[in-house]
């Protein structure tokens, strides 16, 4: 076993690591939010008199107290930090109580009296799309949050050419991120007039925008410092930033440090979920086994607010046919407002839904054609130089779909084991099934948005190195990866590098650490910074020692014959003595991408990754109990920087993906989340999972300075359909709605 490297492991394993709620400050007050009791209403009056008189209460804050903008958002500024008049979801916060203790604030929240005029709510996105529907946001004139489409080839011609047409609807549900640490923030107004923020959030720069907007501050007057955070998975964006904005508001108005720590109940009530999708697919096939068309309509429930629905659904649009070549495509994707709890980013980001559908649909298609599912995939899947459904030619990198698939199927012995599947054989007491799924995934943000990142390498006079990047440590090990990349580029032992505690006031906004872009973008910036630094040092050696530096290895600088010119420390000493800073600012700008909203064509992403996962399982017919026996995955990561941590991404993604397939869902009642805590929301436990095998495939990516791509999301996006396919081979039944609700046989 190679030992894992993590710069934060020691602090975390000893309990020394301080997460947001572990901090206190002198004079610190506590805030607690009051959530809306119903999903749709107009607030007539908020009576705080009784609550104000409760022991320990310092201040009760409503929207009227907000000095800056009441509403903010990443794409559309539609999310009220505190509800002004109109309640749109039970996750809305109506007021904040600030008190000397958390218990006092909690007690006072219950004494706030609301006078409401209830409005008739909308919970069904299809209903919300009808012309006669009430408007969730009347100012938009429609409940449509966004619309994307793809028009490729000629759908009518495709329909004429098809020998067989399949029609199938698939549905997916809301999912809770279930990060172990609920949202929290601690803010204080510094004597220099800066609002200082710490919090459990994934995106310090996004958080800074939320806080600055709420307070009416300029970005320079808000500093977000990041502390260890207990998991995000895409979920600590909007809600986490709002918690920080509310805390900052309390600190600003009370002139005291304020902490707001969410209970699990508050977190589950308010935080956004994975989008539930309704997907209506029609797929045409010809007798040679080729897909000749795909027509699909998808409806995603955005809940009451926009959040990143346009981006999530855009990825679903680009990847609407999975990793297959389809000449004729007609795809319509709608993001829709309802009064449900809102939905947003979640590891996978619009791909788990599509893969759930398409990876089952291709197997249904193969069966109809009398082909095996492997053969059918081989005929239709993208290969080197293939054109995607959005007219992008896959030629900037190695298209390794065949490679990952072959590796998984060989490792799990698919062809052999497939013969033993039960297909619901009534003579058997236990049913066995094996199944797999494949995918491709566009890396990073793609044409969703601007995509660049930076790194600062600041070498100290003693030769030790301070490194930072615009990437955030979400728990995935991002800082460790950046340190390893810098160490390799500079020829230094890792012990000479320290990752500096990040602050939004010290490094430019590098965007959010999402979309599996941390290693790719931050690693690219680190690589480029290290190269600039080496140029500075090389230039210095040339000028003052008349030597040509060729390589940096083992804390030394070598010439092209491998002779040591000087040690690293001597080189740094020389720089400082000659008034030259060994300091580099490196940037990685994502290569050009493009998108045409009208046609749904473009080079959507600058590079892609490929993955395959296979699952073996058993089903007990009498009870419907599913036991996972084995999961094998292969993903092309470009280059593995920290192998053990790459494996950790595999296992964690597969575990969440398996939960997605088998039991995870967030049911709602009257728009409100029913599960209040983990006793009602089941995630995978250690005993639910089999031993998993992670096969790391490395095809260094020419578009990535570090040659690495990403691994966070690909691992989660195909476990569920692989399970569904295995369950089909165990039971003989297709489960097209996620999660799979096994019927007793």
């Amino acid at each position, binding site marked *: 076993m190679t030992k894992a490297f993590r710069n934060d492991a020691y602090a975390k394993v000893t*309990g020394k690591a301080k997460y947001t709620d572990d901090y206190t400050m002198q004079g610190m007050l506590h805030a607690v939010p009051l959530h809306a009791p119903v999903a749709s209403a107009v607030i007539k009056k908020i009576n705080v008199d009784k609550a104000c008189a409760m022991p320990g209460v310092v201040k009760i804050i409503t929207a009227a107290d907000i000095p800056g903008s009441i509403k903010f958002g990443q794409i559309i500024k539609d999310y009220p930090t505190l509800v002004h008049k109109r309640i749109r979801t039970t996750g809305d916060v109506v007021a904040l109580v600030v008190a000397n203790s958390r218990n006092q604030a909690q007690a006072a929240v219950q004494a706030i009296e609301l006078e409401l005029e209830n409005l008739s709510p909308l919970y069904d996105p299809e209903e919300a799309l009808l012309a006669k529907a009430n408007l969730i946001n009347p100012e938009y004139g429609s409940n449509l949050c966004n619309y994307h489409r793809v028009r490729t080839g000629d759908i009518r011609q495709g329909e004429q050419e098809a020998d067989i047409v399949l029609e199938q609807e698939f549905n997916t549900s809301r999912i809770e991120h279930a990060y172990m640490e609920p949202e929290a923030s601690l803010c204080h107004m510094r004597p220099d007039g800066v609002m200082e923020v710490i919090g459990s959030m994934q995106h310090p720069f996004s958080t800074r925008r939320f806080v600055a907007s709420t307070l009416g501050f300029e970005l320079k007057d808000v500093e977000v410092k990041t502390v260890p955070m*207990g998991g995000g998975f895409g979920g600590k964006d909007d809600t986490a930033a709002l918690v920080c904005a509310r805390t900052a508001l309390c600190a600003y108005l009370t002139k005291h440090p304020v902490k707001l720590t969410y209970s699990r109940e508050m977190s589950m009530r308010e935080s956004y979920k994975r989008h539930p999708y309704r997907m209506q697919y029609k797929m045409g096939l010809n007798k040679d086994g080729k897909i000749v068309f795909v027509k699909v309509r998808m409806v995603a429930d955005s809940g009451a607010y926009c959040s990143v629905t346009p981006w999530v659904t855009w990825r679903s649009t680009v990847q609407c046919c999975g990793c297959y070549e389809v000449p004729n495509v007609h795809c319509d994707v709608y993001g829709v407002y309802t009064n449900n709890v809102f939905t947003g980013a979640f590891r996978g980001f619009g791909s788990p839904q599509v893969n759930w559908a398409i990876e089952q649909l291709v197997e249904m298609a193969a069966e109809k054609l009398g082909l095996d599912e492997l053969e059918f995939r081989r005929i239709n899947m993208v290969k080197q130089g293939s054109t995607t459904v959005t007219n992008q030619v896959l030629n900037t990198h190695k298209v390794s779909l065949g490679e990952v698939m072959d590796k998984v199927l060989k490792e799990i012995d698919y062809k052999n084991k497939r013969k033993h599947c039960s297909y619901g054989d009534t003579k058997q007491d236990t049913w066995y099934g094996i199944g797999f799924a494949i995918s491709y995934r566009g890396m990073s943000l793609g044409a969703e948005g601007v995509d660049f990142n930076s790194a600062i390498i600041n070498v100290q006079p003693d030769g030790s190195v301070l490194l930072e990047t615009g990437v955030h440590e979400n728990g995935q090990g991002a800082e460790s990866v950046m340190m390893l990349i810098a160490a390799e580029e500079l020829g230094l032992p890792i012990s000479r590098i320290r990752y500096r505690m990040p602050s939004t006031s010290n490094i430019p906004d590098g965007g959010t650490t999402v979309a599996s872009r941390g290693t790719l973008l931050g690693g690219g910036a680190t690589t480029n910074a290290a190269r600039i630094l080496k140029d500075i040092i090389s230039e210095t050696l040339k000028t003052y020692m008349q030597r040509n530096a060729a390589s940096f290895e083992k804390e030394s600088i070598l010439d092209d014959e491998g002779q040591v010119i000087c040690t690293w420390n001597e080189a740094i000493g020389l720089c400082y003595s000659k008034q030259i800073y060994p300091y580099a600012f490196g940037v990685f700008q994502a290569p050009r991408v493009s998108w045409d909203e009208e046609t749904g064509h473009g080079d959507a992403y600058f590079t892609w990754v490929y993955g395959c996962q296979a699952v073996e399982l058993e089903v007990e017919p009498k009870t419907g109990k599913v036991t996972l026996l084995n999961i094998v995955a292969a993903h092309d990561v470009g280059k593995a920087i920290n192998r053990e941590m790459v494996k950790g991404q595999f296992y*964690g993604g597969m575990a969440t993906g398996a939960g997605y397939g088998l039991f995870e869902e967030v049911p709602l009642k009257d728009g409100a989340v029913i599960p209040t805590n983990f006793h009602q929301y089941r995630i995978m436990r250690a005993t639910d999972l089999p031993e998993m095998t992670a096969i790391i495939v490395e095809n260094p990516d020419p578009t990535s300075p570090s040659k690495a791509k990403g691994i966070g999301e690909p691992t989660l996006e195909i476990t569920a359909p692989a399970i569904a396919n295995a369950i089909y081979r165990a039971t003989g039944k297709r489960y097209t709605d996620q999660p799979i609700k096994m019927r007793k046989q």
Partner: protein
Amino acid sequence: MITVNGINYEIGNELKDKKLSEWLREDLMLTGTKIGCNIGVCGSCTVLVNSEAKRSCKLTLKDVEGSKVVTIEGIALEDGSLHPLQQAFMDAGAIQCGFCTPGMVLSALALLLKNHHPSREEIRQALKGNLCRCTGYQQIVDAVELAAKQMYPTPKH
């Protein structure tokens, strides 16, 4: 009296009904004990009470009167070096966000104190009550196995 990490504390009546988790975090500043659900389901607040893994959010100080409590801050060896289980968590890549880590380590420690050579299945059973969303548990099981080998090497035949 309650002993926490070897130090004795006299408990006044006013504290008897306080949750152990809150007392550890707020009064003793032992913030390595984490609160994930506060209803005894996630295992983040696991501590050892008389060598048994217990959820500190489900206990009051009254419940642990006269007991020996060990938190994550109290398991390093006397010379300050890491407990083999802590080192194994680091080496095996068992740590990601780290929020479940203290509870995981303590549940694993309670297991190893009783069972020196657990199977992977027994390790999974012992960690069943500790939720983790990052790791898929596999490298945590690896870590416990690794630690067991180091702590209790099988005698040579």
